[in-house]
């Protein structure tokens, strides 16, 4: 899967701000520009490590599932880990 485009990254940037604003949660003295750099870096990391994730999967599902299905699985796991944190 390709890197997200600028519009998608901007949406995530906004949605994250909405989320912490709704919780009125401290986030330290970082700027919103630094937060945008975080979005860019996280997306780049996912892109750079997609192959590593794929090769960590057991062979039958690795071959059977589409790239989108494997990404969805990863999304569910990360989301559940976020909820448990």
């Amino acid at each position: 899967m390709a890197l997200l485009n600028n519009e998608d990254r901007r949406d995530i940037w906004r949605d994250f701000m909405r989320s912490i604003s709704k919780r009125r949660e401290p986030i330290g003295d970082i700027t919103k520009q630094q937060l945008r750099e975080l979005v860019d870096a996280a997306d780049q990391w996912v892109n750079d490590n997609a192959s590593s994730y794929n090769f960590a999967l057991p062979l039958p599902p690795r071959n059977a599932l589409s790239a989108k299905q494997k990404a969805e699985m990863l999304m569910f796991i990360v989301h559940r880990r976020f909820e448990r944190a």
Partner: protein
Amino acid sequence: MSAGQSLFYLYSQRAAFPQHSDSAYLSRRVINLTARQPNIIIFEGVSVPASNQWVYFEGVIPQSYSNNGLDVYIYWTTTVVSAANIICGVAFERIDSTLEIDTDSFAAAKTVTDSGSGGGSDTLLIAIISFNHSEIDGLVAGDTFRMKFYRDTDDAGDTLIGELELHLIEIREST
């Protein structure tokens, strides 16, 4: 003479929202645990699509105004306390019998940079923009006007991650 005196207040619930106001919106939000529920206008840290977020107010300049200029007091809170800054701007437009009111003719906007670190969470902050008499589009006592308020989200100096919550605006006559 009203130099230094409060002329009038512009309350959030009286604001008009342009259709393309992006993510500025009116909210009745509980901001602390004392059951206080003010009407506030939310200006997010990023606009999608990219542009500023603004709202309009209308009013009439009081008869007591004596051409000393206006000081605009902006009462705001933020959702995320931080030392980062917001930049917001104000512009005035005089409405007279010859003005086509469906076309903007605002005088040049003036901006202010204010920090979100004025205290603990939900502490009311005050930013002030001063206009001299020539900067308010020729407004005199009795004139009808529109005032535009916006958060300049695309300015590199607007660094606050949290939302700007606009409570009200007080207009004083300059001294």
